[in-house]
């Protein structure tokens, strides 16, 4: 697997720790919601950056009061057709003002990248042979959009009137 940010392979300083795995001494880890809930105090007290991985049926609202503790939130796409994480990413950016990294994990494919970006996802965990061209192409496919982006920017409705 590789991590892609800004259309380039990025160093991944994060370790995703399985629920039955011991936490490493120090170091940035991403844990599941179940583990976070079970070991909240230990995880929060740990002197290292913390990330959260949400399944597609785990809305960010369930951890609303803790969101500021996370530097990375990984949203799972168990299959590319499961579109719940698009709503979750949008809510993270718009409703909760989350400014950390939102990472798409799971069934992340070429033709869904644009929607992910527009919903506020800015990091992508993909297979090693995933073509980087796809990341170059996605933001260039359309010049303008009818909807406001999750991360700001006027819609066509607004641009028509000088926005």
């Amino acid at each position, binding site marked *: 697997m590789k991590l892609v940010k800004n259309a380039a392979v990025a160093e991944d300083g994060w370790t995703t720790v399985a629920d039955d795995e011991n936490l490493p001494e120090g170091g940035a880890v991403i844990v599941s919601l179940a583990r976070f809930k079970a070991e909240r105090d230990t995880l929060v007290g740990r002197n290292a950056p913390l990330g959260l991985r949400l399944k597609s049926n785990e*809305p960010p609202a369930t951890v609303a009061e803790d969101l500021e503790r996370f530097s990375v939130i990984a949203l799972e796409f168990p299959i*590319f*057709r*499961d*579109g*719940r994480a*698009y*709503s*979750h990413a*949008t809510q993270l950016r*718009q*409703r909760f003002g989350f400014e950390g990294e939102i990472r798409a994990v799971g069934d992340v*494919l*070429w*033709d*869904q990248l*644009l*929607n*992910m970006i*527009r*919903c506020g996802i800015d990091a992508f965990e993909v297979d090693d042979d995933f073509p980087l061209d796809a990341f170059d*192409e996605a933001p260039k*496919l*359309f*010049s*303008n*959009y*009818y*909807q*406001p*982006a*999750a991360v700001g920017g*006027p*819609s*066509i*409705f*607004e*641009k*028509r*009137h000088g926005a």
Partner: protein
Amino acid sequence: MYRYDEFDQAAVNERVAQFRGQVARRLQGQITEDQFKPLRLMNGLYLQLHAYMLRVAIPYGTLSARQMHMLAHVARKYDKGYGHFTTRQNIQYNWPRLVDTPDILADLATVEMHGIQTSGNCIRNVTSDPFAGVAKDEIEDPRPWCEIFRQWSTFHPEFSYLPRKFKIAVTAAEHDRAAIKLHDIGIRVVKNAEGETGFEFWVGGGMGRTPIIAKKLKDFVAKADLLDYATACLRVYNELGRRDNIYKARIKILIHEMGLAKYAELVEAEFQRIRGTVALPDAEIARIQAYFAPPAYESLPATSTAFEAKKFEDRGFRDFVRTNLHPHKVPGYAIVSISLKAPGVAPGDISADQMDLVADLAETYSLGELRATHEQNLVLPNVKLDDVYTVWQQLRDAGLGTANIGLLSDIICCPGLDYCDLANARSIPLAKEIQDRFADLERQHKVGELKIKMSGCINACGHHHVGHIGVLGVDKHGKELYQLQLGGSATEDASLGDLTGAGFPPEKLVDAVETVIETYLRLRTGEAEAFLDCYRRVGMAPFKAALYEAR
């Protein structure tokens, strides 16, 4: 009607380029069919029994003469010279080749048309009243709001992978010609006590294997809130709609399972949180409304002597006027319906030559405009009474003069097993048999208003649940069987039909339909009591008795 500006045109052009790239990657094997499927579906491309099928959007059923000429061109160049108007105000081509589809979409883009979101688990092409803008009974033209929905829903990043498809219909008339209560969201344009325009939201209607009539979600959504409120409705559905079973994934099931009150509460909470997020500037509403300003109508007397004289002289014309004309809001004009239910022709089918003729008639006699209806007919919305006779003559000579709008031979019918991958039974040949049995127009008039709707499987593309008489083809142990339903309606008095009982084999179906009709004629209080009213008064028992006791 609406015209694209540079933003709209760029969006469809860029979409064609994107799809061309996707098709190329598919043909090179870089994406699997499973991965390609939702991409092609969101451009209207299905894989059917014999070939691909391309569904082209006719947003809210409005199209120009120029667009209709392009539809004829596509039928000739890329298909077998005909097209099929559907129950969703779209047109389908049954024989395109995959490699040609980017070119077809490129051709369509030159006349501001596309196949965007005519399929897939996204917000589908928005539908509306085919008489919008010309109907006497509407409070304002609903199409600007439809166009706003079209744009807002196009390539929506959050709502392109919903649990299931999502259909929105809008009406602004007293009489619901858009079947809004059979849609995921149905919207009625209303005015509040202050005279301000707003929207009544209905939610969770639909047909398919679990038919449900929509429930009222909110009495009044203000104009400025329209897209925020719609966003809230969709977001709650996207998060909570079932994804474990595609047959339970529509919003109607979510609402059925969680209850309307709970859904409404979640939507309201989300709406209050996001209010003001999806800007819809007043200037933008005004800009879009300006495109729908009434065309330059002439000042004419309310009646036309020439029209009346021709009605008196020509019986064929008189028949046509009796069924195919509806009152126009402007004196001296009529709304002329073109039936695509000619005997021997699959309901909704039209040849390329006929399309060109209809486009020419629209150009010359209907201020350039046409409509497609969810009952699979076409409409010339702006014909001067003085011109109706000429229009009728030309339609008749082209095989388009069928005088049966609203009568029992004006059957809604899905493509069925003759084309469709999902179908269990044929529908087109059975519709034809019913039409043949009741070929006598006087007999049809004697029966009066009667909507027969036929589907070749439980997905209900032929709207059988809301037919006055609904016919559902099923497969029972490898044999086609046809179930009858009575008493459905898709209008403001929406109701679902009741099953009569055991189904009928194909060779007995037409007899059964005839038995139902004869029973109605026997029971009705008089000609003024239409089939639906009679059924609602007497109930199923006498029909059931007539259908089954003699067997």
